[in-house]
C-alpha cells in the first residue's frame, strides 16, 4: 500500500499519454490456496509508446495481471474489484463480444510457449490470415498479401514459402516470430508479451528482444512485457514494475529500479541477479585429477527400421577434459549443444559410442553395468527439475537412504548420514519423515544435493540444477554448492545454459556447440576475451550486459 502511494506521487503524468490504466485491480484466488488473492490493489498505467516490464518471481501474480487485461483469466480467478480502462471503457465490465473485438485488433498478446500457442494443423499463412478473418478485415487476397508483408516484417526467411509451412517445421525462435506476426496483423495499440523469450536460447532471445523493440519503435506501440529476468528487463524496458505475492512493490524507470532499488524485495532480487564475473575464482590448485574424459562420443540413432532411413545425430563429439578434486568445471551451451548428453554419459545413464571416462584410475566408459556398480558411488548427479527428481511416494528419508542401503550400508548408519547431510544442506532433521510435496522447489533441490552427497562422492554432475528455480533461490543454491564443495572437496561438473551463472561458480568452462567443445579455459578468458566466434556470439547475447558487468556482485545499497 505504502509503495503504491509513492508510485502515484512520483508518476504524475497527463492522462492523454495513458493508453491503458489498471486501477485498484483485485483478483481473488479460490479457497485453499496459500493466499486469498492473486493480485491485490494493483494500479498501473501503460503509456503510449513505452515498454513496460512487469517483473516478479513465480507466483507473484504478474501473469494474472496481464491475462486480466486480455480477459483470459481462468474461471476460478475472479476480478473482484478495480477497473481496467482502455479507450474510456472498463474491460472488466465489457460484454464478451466487445472484448473479442478488442482482442487482436487493439490489444494483442504473445505467449511463452510458441509451439502450444500455434495450431499445429494450420499453416503459418492461414494462422496469420485467420486473425484478420476473425475480425472481418480484407478479402482473401488482401489478407494473404498482408500476411506476406508481416512475415517479412518479423524477419522470417523465405516469406513466400514460410506462409505454407506448418509450425512443427519451424525452430522455437521462428515460431515466436510467427506469433509476433499474428499479434501485429491488425496493428494493435498494445502488445502484451508474457515471458515470450523464456523458452528460447540466449542467442534467439537476443534476436526476439531486438525484434520486439524494433517493431515497438517503428509502430509506436505500447508493450507490456512480463518477465522474471532482470537481464531482459535491462535490455528492453522503459519502465519497470516489480511484483511480489500479488502486490506491486516498486515502479519506476529502468535505471532507477536496477541501480537504486528502494523496496527491500527489489533490492534482494536485484542483488540475486547472476552477474558476469571477470575475476578468476580462487578454487583449489594442484589437487589430484578425479575425472578424466578423453575423446568422448555419442551418436543418437533413430528410425533405421525397415521402412525409414536411419537418422544419426552426433550429440557429443570428441569431448575431452580433466576435473580436479575440489574444482568446478562449467559446461555451457544452448539447447541441442550436447551438454546434457555429456552429463548422462558421465553418469552412464546412456552408453557412449567411443572415448574414455577415467574415474578412480579405471576406464569406466565401456564397462557393463555390473562392473561399473562399485564406481557409481564415486560419481553422483543433481537433477534439473526439483519436482520430478524426487519420487512423490517416498519419504525424504527413504529417498536419501535407498542408495547407500542398496550398497550394503546398514539402515541405521544410512539414516544417521541422511540426517547429517540434511543438516549440511540447510534442512532440519524433521524433513526426514516428510514427503517431497511438502517442500518448495529450492528445498527439494537441497534434498537432491543431499541425496548426491550420501555416497560421499568424488564427483557431482549438476545438470541445469538451478535453472528451474527463481532467481533469489538460484543464488542460495549456488552458494550451497560452493559451501558443500568447500566442505567435502568434491569435484563439480556444472552444466548450465546461463553463462552468468557459470562465470560465478566455475574454475574452468567448456563451451559446447553442436556436440563439440568450441572453447575451454578459465571463465575470465572465455567471457571477457572469447576466442571462438560462437562463444563471442553467446557472450554478446547475454541479456543485461550493462547491469551484469558493472558490479562485482555484491548487493547494492
Amino acid at each position, binding site marked *: 500500500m505504502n509503495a503504491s502511494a509513492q508510485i502515484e506521487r512520483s508518476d504524475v503524468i497527463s492522462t492523454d499519454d495513458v493508453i491503458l490504466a489498471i486501477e485498484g485491480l483485485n483478483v481473488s484466488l479460490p479457497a485453499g490456496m496459500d493466499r486469498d488473492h492473486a493480485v491485490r490493489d494493483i494500479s498501473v498505467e501503460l503509456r503510449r509508446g513505452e515498454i513496460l516490464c512487469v517483473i516478479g518471481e513465480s507466483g507473484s501474480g504478474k501473469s494474472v495481471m496481464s491475462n486480466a487485461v486480455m480477459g483470459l483469466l481462468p474461471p476460478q480467478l475472479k476480478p473482484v474489484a478495480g477497473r481496467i480502462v482502455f479507450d474510456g471503457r472498463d474491460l472488466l465490465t465489457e460484454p464478451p463480444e466487445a472484448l473479442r473485438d478488442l482482442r487482436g485488433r487493439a490489444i494483442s498478446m504473445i505467449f511463452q510457449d510458441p509451439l502450444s500457442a500455434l495450431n499445429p494443423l494450420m499453416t503459418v499463412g492461414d494462422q496469420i490470415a485467420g486473425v484478420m478473418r476473425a475480425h472481418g478485415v480484407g478479402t482473401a487476397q488482401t489478407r494473404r498479401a498482408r500476411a506476406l508483408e508481416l512475415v517479412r516484417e518479423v524477419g522470417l526467411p523465405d516469406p513466400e514459402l514460410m506462409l505454407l509451412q506448418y509450425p512443427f517445421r519451424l525452430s522455437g525462435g521462428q515460431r515466436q516470430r510467427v506469433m509476433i506476426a499474428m499479434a501485429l496483423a491488425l496493428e494493435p495499440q498494445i502488445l502484451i508479451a508474457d515471458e515470450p523469450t523464456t523458452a528460447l536460447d540466449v542467442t534467439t532471445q537476443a534476436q526476439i528482444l531486438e525484434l520486439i523493440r524494433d517493431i515497438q519503435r517503428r509502430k509506436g506501440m505500447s508493450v507490456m512485457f512480463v518477465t522474471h529476468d532482470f537481464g531482459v528487463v535491462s535490455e528492453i524496458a522503459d519502465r519497470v514494475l516489480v511484483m511480489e505475492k500479488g502486490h506491486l512493490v516498486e515502479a519506476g524507470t529502468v535505471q532507477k529500479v536496477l541501480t537504486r532499488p528502494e523496496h527491500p524485495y527489489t533490492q534482494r532480487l536485484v542483488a540475486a541477479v547472476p552477474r558476469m564475473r571477470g575475476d578468476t575464482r580462487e578454487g583449489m590448485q594442484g589437487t589430484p585429477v578425479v575425472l578424466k574424459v578423453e575423446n568422448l562420443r555419442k551418436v543418437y540413432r533413430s528410425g533405421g527400421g525397415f521402412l525409414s532411413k536411419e537418422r544419426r545425430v552426433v550429440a557429443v563429439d570428441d569431448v575431452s577434459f580433466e576435473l580436479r578434486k575440489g574444482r568446478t568445471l562449467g559446461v555451457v551451451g544452448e539447447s541441442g549443444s550436447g551438454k546434457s548428453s555429456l552429463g548422462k554419459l558421465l553418469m552412464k545413464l546412456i552408453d557412449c559410442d567411443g572415448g574414455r571416462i577415467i574415474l578412480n584410475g579405471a576406464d569406466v566408459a565401456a564397462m557393463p553395468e555390473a562392473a561399473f556398480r562399485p564406481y557409481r558411488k564415486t560419481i553422483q548427479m543433481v537433477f534439473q527439475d526439483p519436482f520430478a*527428481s524426487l*519420487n512423490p511416494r517416498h519419504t525424504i528419508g527413504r529417498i536419501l537412504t535407498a542408495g547407500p542401503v*542398496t550398497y550394503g550400508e546398514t539402515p541405521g548408519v544410512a539414516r544417521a548420514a541422511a540426517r547429517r547431510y540434511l543438516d549440511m544442506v540447510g534442512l532440519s*532433521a524433521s524433513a526426514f519423515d516428510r514427503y517431497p510435496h511438502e517442500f518448495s522447489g529450492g528445498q527439494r533441490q537441497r534434498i537432491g544435493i543431499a*541425496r548426491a552427497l550420501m555416497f560421499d562422492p568424488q564427483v557431482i554432475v549438476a545438470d541445469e540444477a538451478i535453472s528451474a528455480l527463481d532467481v533469489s533461490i538460484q543464488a542460495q543454491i549456488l552458494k550451497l554448492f560452493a559451501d558443500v564443495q568447500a566442505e567435502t572437496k568434491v569435484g563439480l561438473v556444472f552444466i548450465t545454459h546461463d553463462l552468468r551463472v557459470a562465470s560465478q561458480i566455475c574454475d574452468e568452462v567448456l563451451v559446447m556447440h553442436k556436440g563439440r567443445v568450441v572453447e575451454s579455459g578459465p571463465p575470465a578468458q572465455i567471457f571477457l576475451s572469447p576466442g571462438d566466434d560462437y562463444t563471442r556470439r553467446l557472450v554478446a547475447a547475454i541479456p543485461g550486459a550493462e547491469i551484469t558487468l558493472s558490479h562485482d556482485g555484491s548487493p547494492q545499497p
Partner: protein
Amino acid sequence: MTSMNDSIDPVARPARFGLFGRCLRTSMTGRVGFGLVMFVVIVAIFGPLLTPYAPKDQSAMYAVGANARPSADHWLGTDRLGYDILTQLLYGARTALVVGLGAVLISGCAGILIGGIAGYRGGWTDEVLMRFAEFFLVVPIFIIILAVVRVLSKAVTGTAFETMPYFNLTVIILMIGLFGWAPIARMTRGEFLRIKTLEFVQAARCGGQSGRQIVLSEILPNAFPSIVVLIALEIGGAILAEAMISFLGFGDPNAVSWGQMLYFNYQSLKIWPMASLAPGFMIFITVLGFNLLADGLSDAANPRARRR
C-alpha cells in the same frame, strides 16, 4: 547406531489408501459409486442370511406357483420357473462379484506384467508385446468365449472335470480375464514409458538400484493410480460380459446369475415384469457403481483435471 537414530519420531504417514481416500473425500461421483459398490458387496456377503430359500429351490411351485405376485413368503414374488426372485437376486450378487473380481485379477496381473515389461524394456520387446496385445483387442471376444464355453462343456463330458462345481463359470471367468488384459497392458506401458524418463528414476539408477527395484519401488507405485482407474472400469465390464453370456444361455446352470435370470424370464416380461426388471436393475446399479467409482478415482488421480 548413533544417538540421532533414537530420535526418529513415528510420524504419521499419509493414509495407506491415499488415492482411495482422496476419491471419497473430494469426488461426489466417487462417493456415489463407492456406495453402490459397497451395497452390492454387502448384499453378496450377508444377503443369503436374509432368505430362507436355497438358490435353486423351486418348492414355491407347489405353494404359490410361477410368476407369483409379491407376498409375505416371497417379497418380490417368484419367477417363471418358480424360483424366489429375491433369493436369486441375493445369490446373483455373489456370482457377479466373483466374476468381476476374478476376471480382473487375471487381466490385471497379466496386463500389468506384460505392459510393464513392454514399457520398461522398450525396443523390440515392446513392439512384439504390443502387437500381441493388439491381437487381443481386435478379436471378437464374445464369439470366442461362447464357442469355448460350448466346446469345453462338450469336451469334458465323461472326464473328471464334469463333476467340478461351477466348471462353466470358471471357464467364463478365465476367458473374460484372458481377453481383458490388453487395455490394462496398454495403460501400464504408457505410464511406464512416461515415468521411466522422469528424473527420480534416473536418480535411482545413479543410486545403484537394480532394474527390479526401480520397477517395483519407483515406477509401479507411480503408475498405479491410472491403472486402478482402468481396473475399476474393467470390473464393471467383466460383470456386464458375464451377464451377456448368461443371457445368451451359455451361463453356468449351477450358478445363480442375474444374466441367467434375464434369460429365463424375458419371454414372460409382459406377464410378470419384476422377474426380468429386478435382475436388470441389479446389473445396472452394479456396473454403474464401478464406473462411477472409476470416474471418482480418475478425478482423484489427476488433481489438475479435478479443478475444471
